[in-house]
């Protein structure tokens, strides 16, 4: 999971091939197939070793490269045989080269878009003013069915893009429906009744963000107070939580 980000470094087999071609300083119109195939395969192998989820497209490309490689190895005599005929021998790499060049065009275009996006980001606009006071009669806007979901999304997108004035975070007070203290008691009670280890994740029964936050803070506080014990048997393994038994109870239980 944690390596998933890295695979984004390449958008696909074509992207990877372009990168290899660039690194090896190879002429795209005359690709040494054996060399590039070898590099490509090492690459795939490494991806597997890094426990990356290798998309099937990468494997298909590997097969294609091998196929091209073997075609290129076919004895040259064949070419001679066909020489008399006006049909020109097709280079097995042609199709791939064409694809690479086509893809590279759009990759560069994407780069242009990125620059346009940055340029545009230098301009700041303002939201439309509230013109309520200027509307004489409050007749509703005319209803014509020419608004689509896209229009709504676009308006929303624009809103989210609008740059907000920086305000000190402290002025934003979110409501807190449940106090950390209350949640601490709840968690502790729950663990005591259960009298054993409980999965960390079970302590977050309510998916609501504020509840998650409060629960998490409550757990931290409980750890700090030595009221609960947290265990993890291996890296990235499951986390278990257990109530620390204090006083008379200890005697009874052990």
């Amino acid at each position: 999971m944690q390596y998933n980000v890295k695979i984004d470094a390449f958008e696909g087999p074509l992207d990877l091939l372009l990168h290899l071609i660039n690194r090896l300083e190879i002429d795209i119109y005359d690709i040494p197939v054996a060399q590039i195939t070898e590099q490509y395969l090492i690459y795939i192998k490494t991806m597997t070793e890094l426990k990356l989820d290798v998309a099937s497209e990468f494997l298909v490309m590997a097969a294609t490269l091998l196929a091209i490689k073997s075609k290129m190895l076919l004895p040259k005599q064949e070419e001679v045989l066909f020489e008399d005929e006006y049909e020109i021998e097709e280079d097995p790499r042609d199709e791939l080269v064409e694809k690479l060049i086509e893809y590279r065009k759009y990759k560069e275009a994407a780069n242009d878009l990125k620059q346009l996006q940055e340029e545009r980001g230098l301009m700041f606009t303002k939201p439309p003013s509230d013109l309520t006071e200027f509307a004489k009669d409050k007749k509703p806007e005319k209803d014509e069915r020419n608004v689509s979901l896209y229009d709504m999304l676009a308006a929303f997108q624009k809103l989210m893009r609008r740059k907000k004035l920086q305000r000190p975070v402290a002025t934003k007070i979110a409501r807190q429906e449940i106090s950390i203290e209350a949640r601490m008691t709840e968690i502790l009670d729950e663990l005591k009744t259960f009298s054993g280890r409980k999965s960390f994740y079970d302590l977050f029964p309510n998916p609501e963000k504020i509840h998650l936050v409060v629960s998490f803070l409550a757990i931290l506080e409980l750890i700090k107070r030595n009221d609960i014990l947290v265990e993890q048997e291996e890296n990235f393994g499951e986390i278990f939580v257990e109530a620390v038994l204090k006083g008379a109870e200890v005697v009874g239980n052990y």
Partner: protein
Amino acid sequence: MGITNWSSILESILFAAGDEGLTLKQMAEVLEVDERITLDIVEQLIQEYEQDEKRGINIVQLAGTYQLATKKENAPYLTKLVESPSTTTISQAALETLAIIAYRQPIPRAEIEDIRGVKTERPLQTLMSKALIKEVGRAEGPGRAYLYGTTKEFLDYFGLRSLDELPPLPEKVNEEFVQEEADLFFEKFQETINS
């Protein structure tokens, strides 16, 4: 950098600040001069806006902040604009509001205004009169504000069978929606580990 550029910068930042306006302190911080000098520059700019008949905006002082506003004498044209037949049938303001309600229902007006950063009375009226939204209840707590939600007409209007068919929001946007809560979280988190 001369006083010339100060005018330009001031105009830029006042423009971008919109209805929220800026305090003298905020402006002074951006210009990196002290407040007294900032005041001089602002006052000069106010003069210039006032005197230049080609300008359609000026600077007004409201509740301790300075903000740009349209000149009063142009009010009739703003009325014309509002009533202009080619002004979009559902304005962007209404669409934004509708989107917020669709994705965050039930939601009180204050929260919509917080997200949009502007008053939302008229867009709400428009949407209500088109029956795309309705009051769906009242919030807990003091004030018991009305909560808004979308209607069956909303679904019809956009050709949706149910709200589940609304296109998902981009992840980034969703993140921003919860940003405030996250900020709160980190604040609390800091408090907890520091205490």
